[in-house]
């Protein structure tokens, strides 16, 4: 073993010296954004944006995904939560100390985890490491994401 937690070559504190968050005082920056500035997960996903104050539509183009099958319903939720986490992720890259968004990120990632487990069990792996089947390498199974009607 090259390093253990006790003997970690990269000390966490070293990183803090790179810059100090106390310096980060810019008037227009809102560190603790309230959750009511955010869309609910599915609405944000439909819009392609979780943040109400940055959403800007083109002409009258607004779309809402329709789902018919159980598989699509589960996939839709999975994609919606993956998307919400992605959008919060980009926000947190700039505002890493926003406690409200951090706790929301935590909440959504737990939901995504359980959606993923359910999906993998019913419809197959999302990543190669999800393959648990001992009879067949199910990673290769159709549909692939670009297959028409596959959606996944």
């Amino acid at each position, binding site marked *: 073993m090259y390093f253990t937690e006790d003997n970690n070559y990269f000390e966490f504190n070293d*990183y803090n010296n*790179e*810059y100090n968050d106390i*310096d*980060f005082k*810019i008037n*227009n*920056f809102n560190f603790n954004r309230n959750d009511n500035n955010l869309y609910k997960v599915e609405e944000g*996903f439909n*819009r*392609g*944006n979780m*943040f109400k104050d*940055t*959403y*800007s*539509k*083109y*002409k009258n*183009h*607004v*779309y809402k*995904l329709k789902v018919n099958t159980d598989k*699509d319903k589960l*996939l*839709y939720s*999975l*994609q919606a939560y*993956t*998307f919400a986490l*992605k*959008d919060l*992720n*980009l*926000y947190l*890259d*700039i505002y*890493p100390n926003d406690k409200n968004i951090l706790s929301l990120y935590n909440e959504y990632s737990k939901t995504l985890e359980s959606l993923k487990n359910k999906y993998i069990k019913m419809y197959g*792996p*999302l*990543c*190669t490491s999800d393959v648990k089947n001992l009879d067949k390498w199910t*990673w290769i199974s159709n549909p*692939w*994401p*670009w297959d*028409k*009607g596959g*959606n*996944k």
Partner: protein
Amino acid sequence: MFRYEKTLEYPINIKTKDLKMAQLLVEQFGGPSGELGASLRYLTQRFTMPDERGKALLTDIGCEELGHVEMICTMVNQLIKDATIDELKKYDLESWYTGHKKGVYPMNSDGVPFTAAYIACTGDPIVDLQEDLAAEEKARATYENLMDLTNDESLLAPLSFLRQREVIHYKRFEELLKFYKEKGY
């Protein structure tokens, strides 16, 4: 490291084949304001970002853009895959077919191959971020032009989604640039 996840960022199920839109949409794969250039731009520029915010943001947006490359290619593939030779001829896609059959090659809508000359990597974070802001705006405008050219909702929904991503990426790059200027980088 990169790991593949077997799902699109946003679902795509194109209802009807449309060779004209396939030819136009390929612009956002291999054109100057396309997603391939976007992903390469950020994933290249990130090595000279001066702090952890920049390293993270360019990595994360760069990865998302790779997902957008996949979405655009999926749309093009679904629009063209069932075309007959006669249909390809009718829409002047003989040169596409000659070089690529129905393959999705990184080129613009005129068939000009992708080039790394579409992106900049100056090593200067302020200059690179200014380029990134312009790139997001150019991509947004291109999506709007494409949306003007179709009535197919199964195309419009993902295009609208992708356009909105340009809006949010612009916003984040703008915040990072503002922060870097304050910090004096």
